[in-house]
């Protein structure tokens, strides 16, 4: 592990190892350095990222909010319309519902409804627990709900480098962007570019593994068991292509199609609940636009249509596992 000083000292254009959560913080540090209109607000954010942002930017840029998710989300939207570029930390994704009226009825609509008179450059961050017995009121993965809302962009990157590059794009974007972080990825380490101008564009999928036999689309935290499954399958001689959309809205359907053109077989894995999730959308688009490329049914793995249980005994098999994923791939061969 490198010290903070080393990370900052690293010359542009090189990579450095850091965790996913460090990469998020680093992205915010760089963007807040670059643009003083960028501010951070949320509950207890002064201690977020080990207090690094608060130490560096102080209380005029990092705002601890009262427990008023609807109110401070709206406040941030008003501030975004009026010259600031807020990053709103909504903490656990289960709290996003309290802010959903403001996100949907105001942030997603007002630019359109004013005929383009105003802009709303704002980022909403939240994280999704799907392990550790947080129980149903702290374990939501509600990104599918926001997929249906016009005017929102949604990212859920899965590597340290991707979250840094996409978080930076989100902060620079001129419209509302939602960031759904899977808390299971926070501790993941990876090489991350130090160049503060390296961004990853919103809307572009990434091929995390190349392969010929089956296309596996893995959404958000599902990438971890997916990669494990693919490693096991590779040993069996099955060649799997793994596509990580990274951006959930708008989805990069072309990337999936290109892969399906090669494999003719598609499995989609996610930790969201089963009904009307991102997998549904990808499958539906492929059943319409890539029907003739498909040789086998499209399989979807996801959390069941049941709330997340507290008990570790029940939580264990709740989300798609490495074995579930490998079995699905094998079913298509």
């Amino acid at each position, binding site marked *: 592990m490198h010290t903070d000083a080393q990370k900052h000292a690293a010359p542009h254009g090189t990579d450095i190892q850091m965790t996913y959560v460090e990469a998020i913080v680093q992205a915010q540090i760089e963007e807040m350095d670059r643009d003083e209109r960028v501010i951070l607000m949320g509950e207890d954010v002064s201690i977020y990222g080990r207090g690094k942002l608060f130490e560096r930017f102080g209380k005029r840029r990092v705002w601890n909010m009262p427990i008023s998710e609807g109110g401070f989300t709206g406040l941030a939207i008003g501030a975004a*319309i*009026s010259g600031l570029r807020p990053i709103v930390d909504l903490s656990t994704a289960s709290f996003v519902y309290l802010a959903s*009226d403001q996100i949907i009825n*105001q942030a997603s609509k007002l*630019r359109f409804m*004013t005929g383009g008179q*105003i802009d709303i450059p704002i980022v909403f961050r939240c994280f999704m627990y799907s392990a550790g017995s947080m129980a149903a009121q702290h374990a939501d993965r509600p990104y599918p709900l926001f997929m249906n809302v016009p*005017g929102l962009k949604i990212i859920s990157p899965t590597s340290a480098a991707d979250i840094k590059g996409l978080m930076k794009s989100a902060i620079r974007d001129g419209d509302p962007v939602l960031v759904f972080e899977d808390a299971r990825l926070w501790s993941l380490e990876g090489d991350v570019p130090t160049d503060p101008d390296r961004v990853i564009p*919103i809307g572009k999928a990434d091929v995390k593994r190349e392969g010929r036999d089956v296309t596996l689309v893995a959404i958000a935290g599902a990438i971890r068991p997916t990669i494990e499954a693919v490693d096991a399958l590779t040993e069996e001689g099955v060649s799997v292509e793994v596509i990580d959309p990274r951006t959930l809205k708008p989805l990069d359907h072309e990337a999936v199609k290109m892969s399906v053109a090669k494999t003719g077989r598609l499995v989609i894995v996610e930790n969201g609940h089963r009904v009307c999730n991102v997998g549904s959308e990808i499958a539906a688009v492929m059943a319409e636009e890539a029907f003739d490329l498909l040789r086998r049914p499209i399989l979807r793995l996801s959390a069941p249509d049941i709330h997340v249980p507290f008990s570790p005994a029940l939580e264990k098999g709740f989300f798609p596992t490495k074995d579930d994923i490998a079995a699905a791939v094998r079913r298509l061969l």
Partner: protein
Amino acid sequence: MQMNGDQQLEAYRRMLRIRRFEEEAMRQFSRNKIPGFFHSSVGQEAAIVGACLALRDDDAMTGTHRSHGHPIGKGARLDALMAELMGKQGGICKGRGGSMHFADNSVGIISESGIVGGGIPLATGCAFSASVRGVDQVTLCFFGDGAVNEGTFHESLNMASLWKLPAIYLCENNGYAIVTSVEQSHAQPDIALRAAGYGMPGVTIDGQDVTAVFEATAQAVARARAGEGPILIVANTYRFDEHNYGLLVPGQPYRSVAEIEAHKRDRDPILLYRAVLLEEGVSEKTLREIEEEVTEHIKKAVKFALNSPMPETETFSDYMFNTPI
């Protein structure tokens, strides 16, 4: 803080603009030139105009579903407003927003919210932004008595007072939310008393007296601009028309014809102010000139609106994004 002579005439002019705009728009509505919901501000002109005139041109504002009066009060051009009501491309929101969402950003309106209470946090955020950026802009936030019961009111006023934001919360208390009276929905009908819970001042004023509204707001603006924080002003007013144009309310009437007639007769903010101006020595001729000017202005606005083209079908996705992907 009192209005000077010019401001007094401007107050009269803008109140009259709202009144005539609404009357003409309702005429256009009944001729099917205007679609959707239509909430008239008739009767509430003084509460709107008195408050707006206490602002600088570069101060900001948010309004409500009853949204026509606010931009007019702040000085917006009428032609683009009328065109908006008709869903025309020449409308202030290019025909995308319509009656309940009459935001004219060029006069500082950041939004009018069709969602009751939805604009209160936005106004608070606008004031927050001014405070963080260190500019001395003040934000005026309009909302109705009904909106006071939304959580956004509570959350916003707390934050505004906590951080001493330059925000003026102006409740247009017309006594009713659709058919539900303040007494039927507010455990504490004296709305100004809610301010104490947020450690901020709260005052109740006669919302039919444009002078009283101006003075209370001007004082609040000075205070806010000096960094002393927000205030809650409850302007008691009355809506002369039904909640929305054409609404038929079945069953027992929720307000009596006598009540409505009494307000129209004795509490019309425009008639009241006309009398004040005459009393203060403004000539009948001056007022007539203003009245004719307003009539002309409205005529032109209607003409502009009727002649403005409808948006082209191919443009239906315009204005969605600043940064399209």
